């Protein structure tokens, strides 16, 4: 099957900020050339490692984010490297550039020089705080961006005094900003002429805190963090409960339909654990809200007698939006992901052979969006790419 974006060519300046956007293009079939500095991309040095092997070809971080890409080492501080880079840009649709503001210009690659190399190029610059402004020179990290962006202050515990706000793990600042880079690049391509996109990771994070801004704007009140659930102005009942097998359940009772409520109560009643929830008074929204903590406690006592899986599937069968709180390794055997072909095998070459990777979450009907090839070894495609540039 053809691949969704197989007609596109992307040049990606290797770095932690560009790699997710580059992967989104690459898994959709675009040709993505990863331009690495001499010595390799910074993220070739990021853990976790394959079987504890700490070298430039064994970073699982790098493997994950660079599937399907080509690698060429170009020294942008030298004339030859710069010429090869500009030649590459000449045939590219998009440049993903995560360099700090002014860093490329210092190497002689100004915005104008890049635009001259290809007037149709969409140049996406991802910087921590944007190209200009009072904080433009500041540095970020996943933690720092989620702190300044407002995510952290919404995550944590309200039943544990003086506990810190908590960072959402998994490189999410990179995902928020990188996904926007992908979106902006594709949108700019629709306009059919070159463009310079100035993307700020800080903006991307700061703009994704759900209801916090409307709450503040309409009520003047600031939401505060609650254990395992939404930050809010006023206290809310717990919705995480520990199941019999030690795993937790997310048992949200937001917008519960009468049908779902009846299903829940009769389920508890079948096990003699409904307590007083069979009382029809709970259909009155005000009483439901007033008794929310009590309801949560009754559900908690029921959850403690079942496994997380029993609660997850039993609740969903009754139209409740509960889920088991799965650990990442649980996904390996998850029947739903298996049925949707989420996991794939990629050939890692010698000596590793075929390895199990996560595919993409995009399921298209007429074309394909999923990785097909392992991440490149350092400079794997460099000789061919530099040779072509020299012939240029």
């Amino acid at each position, binding site marked *: 099957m053809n691949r969704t974006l197989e007609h*596109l060519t992307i040049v990606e300046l290797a770095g932690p900020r560009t790699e997710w956007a580059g992967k989104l293009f690459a898994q959709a079939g675009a040709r993505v050339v990863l331009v690495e500095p001499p010595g390799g991309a910074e993220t070739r040095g990021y853990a976790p490692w394959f079987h504890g092997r700490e070298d430039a070809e064994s970073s699982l971080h790098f493997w994950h984010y660079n599937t399907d890409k080509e690698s060429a080492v170009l020294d942008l501080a030298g004339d030859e490297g710069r010429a090869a880079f500009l030649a590459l840009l000449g045939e590219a649709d998009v440049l993903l550039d995560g360099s700090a503001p002014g860093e490329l210009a210092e190497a002689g690659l100004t915005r104008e020089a890049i635009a001259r190399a290809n007037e149709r190029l969409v140049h996406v610059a991802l910087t921590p705080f944007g190209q200009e402004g009072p904080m433009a020179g500041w540095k970020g990290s996943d933690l720092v961006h989620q702190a300044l*962006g407002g995510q*952290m202050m*919404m995550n944590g515990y309200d039943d544990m005094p*003086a506990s810190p706000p908590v960072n959402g793990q998994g490189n999410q600042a990179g995902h928020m900003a990188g*996904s926007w880079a992908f979106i902006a690049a594709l949108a700019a391509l629709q306009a059919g002429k070159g463009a310079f996109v100035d993307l*700020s990771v800080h903006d991307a994070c700061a703009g994704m805190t759900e209801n916090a801004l409307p709450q503040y704007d309409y009520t003047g009140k600031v939401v505060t963090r609650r254990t395992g659930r939404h930050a809010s102005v006023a206290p809310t009942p717990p919705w995480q409960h520990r199941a019999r097998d030690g795993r937790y359940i997310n048992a949200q009772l937001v917008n519960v339909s009468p049908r779902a409520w009846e299903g829940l109560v009769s389920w508890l009643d079948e096990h003699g654990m409904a307590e007083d929830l069979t009382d029809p008074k709970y259909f009155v929204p005000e009483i439901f809200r007033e008794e929310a903590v009590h309801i949560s406690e009754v559900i908690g006592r029921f959850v403690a007698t079942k496994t997380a899986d029993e609660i997850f599937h039993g609740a969903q069968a009754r139209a409740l939006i509960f889920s088991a709180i799965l650990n990442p390794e649980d996904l390996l055997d998850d029947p739903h992901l298996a049925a949707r072909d989420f996991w794939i095998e990629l050939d890692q070459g010698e000596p590793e052979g075929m390895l199990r990777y996560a595919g993409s979450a995009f*399921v298209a009907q007429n074309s394909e969006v999923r990785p097909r090839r392992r991440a490149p070894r350092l400079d794997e495609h460099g000789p061919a790419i530099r040779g072509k540039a020299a012939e240029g």
Partner: protein
Amino acid sequence: MTDDGGMRALLDGIRVLDFTRHLAGAGSTRILATLGAEILRIEWPHPPALDFLRLSGPHADGRPGMNRGGFFAQINVGKRSVAIDMSTDAGKDLARELIPHCDVIAESFSPGVMKRWGLDYEAVRAIRPDIIYLSASGFGQTGPYAGYRSVGPTAQAYSGLTATSGLPDREPAGWGFSYMDHMGAVMNAAAILMGLERRRATGEGEFFDAGQSQHGCALLGPMLLDVSLNGSQVRPRGNHDLYGNFCPNNAYRCRGEDSWLAISVREPGEWAALCAVMGADDLAGRQELATLAGRLTHESEIDARIRAWALPRDAREATVALQEAGIPAGLAQTVEDKVQRDPQLAFRGLYTTLDDPVLGERRYEDVPVRIDGFDVGVTTPSPWLGADTRDVLRELLGYSEERLEQLKADAIIDDAITLEEARGA
């Protein structure tokens, strides 16, 4: 520049027939609206085509109403609202008549609703072969959990995003908001744009079956390979980097109530600068701490030193001092900090104020990109339910006033209400 001298939008001429609701769905068409697409929200004041966020708070003046929800308004800026009763045959016919005029259909109902209305992908492509069609749901259209219901926290719990965030040996902290509603919206917009880009190259349409939960799984990042190839069990490490790629990497309490400072260090130069700012000559002089690996073995000791340094300090002043020395650092901001005291967000104009006739002057989160020569961002307030029904049917289908009156009399459509009604509605 356009002929009339105005700036162009990136998605000029792209029209979306929008059956999405909530943040994960309607957030995706919001993104397209900020990039210049025309969004026709098809809605109705009763389920399933009612977006319950229309009724959710916060409300203007604390008074509920269909056109008074602040969160709904945030998600639906820049769109047009067309009120059609899709439970009627005439309503379904009307939607079908609109399809040839649209490039994209996006929907976020439970699987099966669009098919019942005769508007599933196969039916729509028969009318418009190059349509880009997005079905966004909790778990996707296929697979054993296809019928399962999901909102952001469900998707986060299922995907591993909740379990991996928190303090060690505590129940998960997870996410204190619907992260996967935001990222669901972002990924859904990305899918639609991939479809549009492919159509630009090939002329062909595309269908995307998007599952919010599956997108959550894909956002676990390198953890996915760690569990599949190393057989690891990933457990929370608080604010320490899960894989030790940064050290120190933590949040430290500062002066004042619930005030915290995040610091991340990777490079030797950053570590030396941190020691200098803290006046910690003894730490700077210890060779084993110059490397990341060395610092990781002394993580608790380093944390204790920074904790003691940070505690009497103002988090904002400490942030500035550290950043000026080249160290990645930042205070944990509340929404009030971001709105009132963040000079960079103010400089870039992340918060745009729009004057809504019902809601008044309100702040809206704008886009994280600036693009020379193009108009991007939030432009007009969210529409009242049905505000654009008549205009859209006149413009696109050439309906006469008589016909529109008849449709309204038959309760097939609803239309723009007066400001007074909108305020009360």
